[in-house]
């Protein structure tokens, strides 16, 4: 059987130059005249997942879990390497990707439209989504910004599972709902597993993961530490966490700093591949620019 999701040598580089001006220059000169200060948020991630697998992505804060899940959802592009996903993917995050100013109902319709549904399809699913989210007719007409975080994640979850994704990525979204709702979500995800859909489960708590996942990826400071069957990895991870907790506050900070420094150092050593547009692709632009100049010249001449 073929793979469902294949992640091949994927790296993600962020630019640490947070200066707006340099970003502007980079945007308008297509990468020329601009030096990037690159930082590898993820480096050489490599794994393959079959249909029906549920994969837990674990790691400490800032280790690159969310970057990985964003890339799996195809929201951001990897700097290097390829991610091949067979089918549609859908991301559920804590802030759920909802528009704060729109009401719940508008968000449902907007998001479903953006997923490519027709309005009659949405009419058919609307009641289901409303029921699943347990928001009730009153709240659904209110703007999202008045919702509690639990309500938001319920709505986000309800919409995402009704868009019929082949790959579902759950980024800590269940940690805010109460247990009755997260149980309902679990049931729904078990249904998904039975239908042979792939689920990625991002969390730093191992409890739910043990229940749900048969595979796991452990990301540690931008690198993939382990990938394979869930149980041994989660055990290793718990052991690591316990050891980490045993350290004093200072030692914890020291450890973090040490690892971050290592990550940064590696980023520096690696070849700085500049994000330039190739010169040949700029030729039509230059021609058009000359054409525009000629147009201005002709216009001046005709006055």
């Amino acid at each position, binding site marked *: 059987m073929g793979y469902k999701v294949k992640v091949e040598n994927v790296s993600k580089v962020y630019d640490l130059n947070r200066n707006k001006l340099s970003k502007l220059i980079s*945007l308008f000169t297509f990468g020329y005249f601009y030096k990037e200060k690159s930082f590898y948020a993820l480096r050489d991630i490599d794994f393959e997942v079959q249909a029906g697998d549920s994969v837990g992505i674990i790691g400490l804060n800032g280790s690159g879990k969310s970057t990985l899940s964003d890339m799996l959802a*195809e929201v*951001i592009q990897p700097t290097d390497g390829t991610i091949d996903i067979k089918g549609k993917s859908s991301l559920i995050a804590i802030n759920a*990707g909802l528009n704060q100013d729109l009401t719940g109902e508008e968000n449902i319709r907007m998001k479903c439209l*953006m997923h490519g549904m027709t309005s009659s399809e949405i009419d058919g699913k609307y009641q289901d989504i409303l029921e699943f989210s347990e928001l009730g007719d009153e709240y659904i007409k209110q703007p999202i910004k008045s919702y509690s975080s639990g309500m938001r994640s319920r709505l986000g979850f309800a919409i995402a599972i009704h868009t019929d994704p082949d790959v579902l990525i759950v980024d800590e979204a269940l940690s805010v709902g109460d247990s009755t709702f997260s149980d309902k979500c679990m049931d729904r995800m078990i249904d998904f597993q039975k239908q042979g859909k792939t689920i990625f489960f991002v969390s730093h708590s191992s409890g739910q993961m043990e229940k749900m996942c048969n595979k796991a990826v452990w990301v540690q400071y931008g690198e993939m530490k382990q990938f394979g069957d869930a149980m041994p990895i989660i055990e290793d991870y718990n052991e690591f966490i316990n050891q980490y907790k045993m350290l004093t506050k200072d030692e914890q900070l020291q450890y973090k700093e040490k690892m971050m420094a290592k990550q940064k150092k590696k980023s520096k050593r690696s070849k700085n591949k500049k994000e330039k547009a190739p010169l040949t692709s700029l030729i039509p632009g230059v021609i058009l620019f000359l054409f525009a100049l000629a147009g201005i010249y002709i216009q001046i001449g005709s006055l």
Partner: protein
Amino acid sequence: MYNIFKFLKEQWTNRRLIFGLAIYDLKAQYANHYLGVFWNILQPAMQVLLYYIVFGLGLRGDRGDVGELPFIIHLITGVFPWLFLSSAVNSTSGAIQGQLSLVTKMKFPSSTLISVSLVNSVINLMMTTAIVTFISLINGYSSPLHYLGLLYFIFASIVLTSGIGLIMSSLVILIRDMKNVLQNVVRMFFFVTPIFWSLNEANEIMHVISSFNPFAYLVMNYRNAMVLEEAPLYGDTADHIYFWAVTLFIFYVGVHVHYRFRDKLVDYL
């Protein structure tokens, strides 16, 4: 060049999505209004009325007609295409920013948001143009074949405004101030474009400014197509070459900036 084809293809493959979102936008915009979509006509009509009082009755006074046209006709054939152009520029520029929270959390071709805004603006233009066509037919201002110039106007406007929109939609996310700058620039263009004044009566300086103002070219094309007796297209060869040279360059830059921005959107936030 490849990016331009990619952009056009993206719009074509997502055409159903674009129209779905545009119609939804239109419905949602006036969902809780008593007059609903009727506002799309009422708003421009009220604006025309105001301008007529200020510029027509006030400034112009007794001078009356513009060439063979009553001033009010001259005014609406300037204000309606202008409202289309300005709303297209403003809404495309804010299109991505408005849906940022959705776009950063799902796989979505954000270039289609530009098209959604454009489709919306074109729908509004159709409503106002219906009025102009009606008036023009009754008074026999323009010959029916001239109305084809409207299609040229729409096409040319879409290329120009989508180019501007593609650049600005990225820029306003990077620099919030750009939105205010843009609004003010658009307002300035309202006054230097022959909307409530007429090119034939204007000072030589205004001719020079207008010949470099692509919006003047567009508005005049609309007017030519809808109410003027002359050729269906406005301008001489130099005007056409100038407009398309500048427009295509803006469009090219827009598409490239958009794709460069989109691939690294999170970096630029």
